[in-house]
């Protein structure tokens, strides 16, 4: 089953090409859309909502074409924009009820759904106060609630963790995971942090400059380049040499040594090497893959692919 699919999707603005021949398919569950600022994430979402005409190519959302059935798509999906979008002088309840009605729910049902949804996103007594007095975290919850209130089959969440503190970030990510699993609503969530998305997504799409860099299940990402970062007080070179001798792949990374995890024996090798050399270990942690690593990896893969025909 395909939730959305694009084929050769291109969007050019007068000065910039926001999307360039993008072809992706997304299945049910939580899908992450990763890219640096200006990579074309928001443009893609606007096209998928039928609000922006593609210059070339086509796209289907829930098997509906975005150029011809935009209104139907917008009835069946929810959208949480990246930017602030809340009027300050109404309460969260009033606003979410109103947005439910704007999606076609009758007033009584809208009230019921709004109360339910606000509870699910974690807004309780404060929902009767005007939104203007809310913290960023609470505002993000209201934005999420208005996207869910009409029980869509798919939600687009544009940078939902923007501006949140670490705890708020964790809570938001937990909510997104619940939406995808417990609520049974498919999610397309954008972020510029891959590490953040790998905790909640089943599938990740990486775009850069409007082009598709990579689209794969999250397990591929972590398996392919799982690393462990090792930091010792001194004797970094010695350790690197010893680990290489033990058959590990080591790359120095500033004060850190990145060791590729081949299996549990890698951790044993690190432990033994550090003990044998009598080094003082400062840090041993799971390497967080960052978006740059994906870029580097993909570039390397492209280079390899380029060498094949030669």
């Amino acid at each position, binding site marked *: 089953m395909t939730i959305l699919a694009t084929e050769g999707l291109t969007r050019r603005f007068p000065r910039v090409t926001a999307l360039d021949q993008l072809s992706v398919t997304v299945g049910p569950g939580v899908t992450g859309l990763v890219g640096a600022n200006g990579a074309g994430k928001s443009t893609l979402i606007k096209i998928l909502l039928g609000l922006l005409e593609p210059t070339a190519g086509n796209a289907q959302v829930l098997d509906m074409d975005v150029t011809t059935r935009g209104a139907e798509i917008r009835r069946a999906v929810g959208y949480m924009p990246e930017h602030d*979008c809340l009027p300050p002088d109404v309460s969260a309840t009033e606003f979410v009820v109103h947005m439910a*009605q704007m999606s076609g729910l009758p007033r009584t049902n809208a009230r019921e759904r709004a109360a339910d949804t606000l509870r699910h996103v974690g807004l309780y007594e404060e929902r009767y106060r005007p939104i203007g007095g809310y913290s960023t975290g609470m505002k993000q919850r209201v934005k999420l609630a208005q996207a869910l209130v009409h029980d869509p089959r798919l939600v687009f969440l544009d940078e939902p963790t923007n501006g949140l503190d670490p705890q708020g970030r964790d809570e938001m990510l937990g909510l997104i995971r619940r939406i995808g699993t417990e609520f049974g609503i498919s999610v397309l969530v954008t972020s510029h942090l891959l590490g953040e998305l790998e905790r909640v997504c089943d599938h990740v799409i990486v775009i850069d400059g409007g082009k598709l860099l990579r689209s794969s299940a999250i397990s591929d990402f972590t398996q392919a380049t799982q690393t462990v970062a090792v930091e010792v007080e001194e004797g970094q070179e010695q350790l690197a040499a010893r680990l290489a001798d033990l058959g590990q792949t080591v790359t120095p990374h500033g004060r850190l040594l990145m060791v590729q995890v081949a299996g549990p024996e890698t951790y044993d090798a690190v432990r033994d090497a550090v003990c044998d050399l009598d080094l003082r270990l400062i840090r041993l942690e799971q390497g967080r893959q960052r978006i740059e690593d994906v870029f580097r990896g993909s570039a390397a893969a492209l280079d390899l692919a380029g060498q094949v025909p030669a």
Partner: protein
Amino acid sequence: MTATPIHEPTGVIHDIGYRHYDGRRLGRGSAVAALTLHSLRGVFGLGRPARSKIMPFGLLVVMLLPAVVTVAIMMLVKQQGMGYPGFTATMQTVLAIFLATQAPYLVAPDLRFRVLPLYLSRPVTVLDYVGAKLAAMTLAMLVLMVLPLTVMFLGELLADLPGPGHTGEFFAALATSVLYAVMLACVGTAIASFTPRRGLGVAAVIAFYLLTSAISGVIYGVLASLSRDGAAEWAMLINPFFAVDAVQVWLFDTPPGNGVGYPDGLGGPIALLGVLALIALAVLALIMRYRKAASS
């Protein structure tokens, strides 16, 4: 399972999990109706903090005061007080202030706080949005005009004045109110929509009213002092309120509300054309404004 006695009061919120909605989903029309109602409530500050209610309800009371005084006169002195047809033109300053303070409230926050993209991510279109906002402002202006007129009319019926009634004039005034409301709503909303800042919108709308009424007044004064009364009457039509009043005089043969009268013959039709052109211009400007806002 052990039966533990419960001592503290138990107010438990049961998490019944996520429930899907399988009820009715209405069409675009009901969404537009919901937006209209939401906007109309916003104009009068309903569902908003108390300070949002002061201005609209204060002005509504000011509109009702002359009506109440008129009713009192009719009851006590048994004389017709303020006439229906001239009421709106006489109260134009209050209406202009209401329009200037409330029309920006209708459109500016959606632009400033970027609520518009949220609306457009729903099945409604830009035209639906503009239509709903105009409908809300028109209804609000109608409330402000029709309520005092109705109070006066009910007063007249109760007072049982000697002589012929003024039922015809009352209905003429009601019909004219619709034209007033549509014109004011379109012009006020269009001007206000060009700035996301409310204060600027208020100033712009009030400036438009002051400018037209001042220009009209000055030209009228100059021409009247030159004893060119015919031309002076044409100058009256520059003020949009008097233009609508001239249409009323032409269509319903009511006494003019400006105290000096309007040009005979072509005056009425031309005033109507002018008002309609103003409405068309305002709607066009609004649509262009929102097409641009939607694509950005």
